[in-house]
């Protein structure tokens, strides 16, 4: 029984790691080797693909652009979601239930539906091809998600905490910043993680709203695949590099992952 369980876990992880291993393998090969021979590890180990990415501004700017709008989006989403989630978890007010459901429907909107109108909206407001445009557009699905996660965590905090603080003479904002936010720090971490994740992996809107100045790395890769012939090694190296920020973020929240993925609602 125990061995069978171990086997399932190991096989699953092996399944997950195989494509990543192959990506890394390819990224250290030259184009000639990729097309010429088939081998499980690089015969002529080369860092050329990575060097190209780190020296060519169209490549490394892609990374910087992506990280910039992802960070802006995460900060906006969490900041705006915090008071809203507090209101949903603590108060009854006119239209609260409908508002909450409307909020969640935005998470259900297919980005493909909005691609064209977004393009027109952000062109009209003069924000097209800026980091802020992508960051704002990603708020469409990240704010509802952040509100939902934070509301779950906040509802787990007993109301007595608020009441005690007021009795101790705290003003609302002092209580909120000094006591409440530290209490739900784990929830904020999880919400930020999810915002980062969805903003980092999304491409359709990010690509639609940018052309040159704010072009995300993911879009740069798509271009390579279609125009520069089939530079598989370069593509693999660029792909491998996009895994790093994600791995980095997961490592930080590893202790909250299990609880976090249940969105505080187990």
């Amino acid at each position, binding site marked *: 029984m125990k061995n069978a369980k171990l086997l399932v876990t190991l096989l699953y992880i092996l399944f997950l790691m195989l494509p990543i291993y192959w990506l890394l393998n390819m990224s250290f090969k030259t184009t000639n080797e990729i097309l010429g021979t088939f081998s499980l590890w690089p015969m002529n180990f080369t860092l050329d693909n990575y060097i190209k990415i780190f020296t060519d501004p169209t490549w490394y700017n892609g990374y910087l652009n992506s990280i910039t709008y992802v960070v802006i989006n995460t900060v906006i989403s969490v900041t705006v979601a915090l008071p809203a989630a507090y209101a949903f978890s603590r108060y009854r007010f006119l239209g609260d239930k409908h508002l909450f459901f409307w909020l969640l429907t935005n998470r259900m909107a*297919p980005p493909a539906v909005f691609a064209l109108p977004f393009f027109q909206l952000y062109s009209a407001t003069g924000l097209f091809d800026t980091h802020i445009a992508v960051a704002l557009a990603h708020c469409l699905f990240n704010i509802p998600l952040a509100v939902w996660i934070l509301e779950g965590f906040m509802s787990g905090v007993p109301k007595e905490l608020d009441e005690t603080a007021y009795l101790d003479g705290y003003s609302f904002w002092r209580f909120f910043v000094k006591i409440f936010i530290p209490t739900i720090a784990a929830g904020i971490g999880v919400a930020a993680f999810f915002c980062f994740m969805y903003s980092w992996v999304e491409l359709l809107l990010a690509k639609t709203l940018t052309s040159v100045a704010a072009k995300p790395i993911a879009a740069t890769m798509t271009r390579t695949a279609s125009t520069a012939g089939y530079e598989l090694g370069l593509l693999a190296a660029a792909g491998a590099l996009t895994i790093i920020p994600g791995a980095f973020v997961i490592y930080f929240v590893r202790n909250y992952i299990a609880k976090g993925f249940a969105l505080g609602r187990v």
Partner: protein
Amino acid sequence: MNKTANSKAWLFVIPMVVLVAFNALIPLMTVVNYSVQETFGDNVFFWEGMKWFEQVLRSDRFHESFLRQFAFTGMILLIEIPLGILVALSMPRKGPWVSVCLVLMALPLLIPWNVVGAMWNIFALPDTGLLGRMINGLGIHYNFTQGPVAAWATTVVMDVWHWTSLVVLLAYAGLCSIPEAYYQAAKIDGASAWAVFRHIQLPKMKRVLTIAILLRFMDSFMIYTEPFVLTGGGPGNTTTFLSIDLVKIALGQFDLGPAAAMSLIYFLIVLLVCWIFYTLMMRGEAK
């Protein structure tokens, strides 16, 4: 928790509402606007009423991509949910390996979607990819860029690779919330492993599994980037799912009217299924 009535709570919600509404309402209105008009450029529009909706609903092309979409979503749900539960049940509950497992499993979730497509492209290419080589080595002719079956299978396996971990992590969180006493009571009651699963683990995972199914339904129904990068919707139209078709019509052919009508129908379908699911779930919980 009983909440206090407080109409000032709206002040807390306003910044959020403004931001989301800016992104949701204006584009939605634009789409509605296009869906009932015809344009020949130069910003001249003609009222067309329900024409585009009828056209979309009657078109074979829409029916086909819609059916493909449903088949795809159904298929990946049927694989990912049981597989996710199985892996979650198999994972160690404590010890140093838990974090390692969780980090490795979460990794695919944080890879940009087009990189997922590109990665699987590289992995599955018949001549240079490991998977392609292996399958052809077994004597099965496999080329996902040409064979419709191979293309479908590769797309499904890619989605399983990409998203099963979400189900695993959710189910695992549900399992971890079961107090030890339940397992002890089951031992004392002489319950079999199946009975423990059926009567303790599954009921306790119900909530998180509902979230998992809902998220997987929504996200797979909107899937665009990964299959677009992997197969480009082909060969032929065999992997052209709803979003891919929509983008082809809207940005490829610039048929704004039909694209907008299709967008709305598409959005309404997702909403409807989620609403049905949500209501059933709530009714189940009320019981």
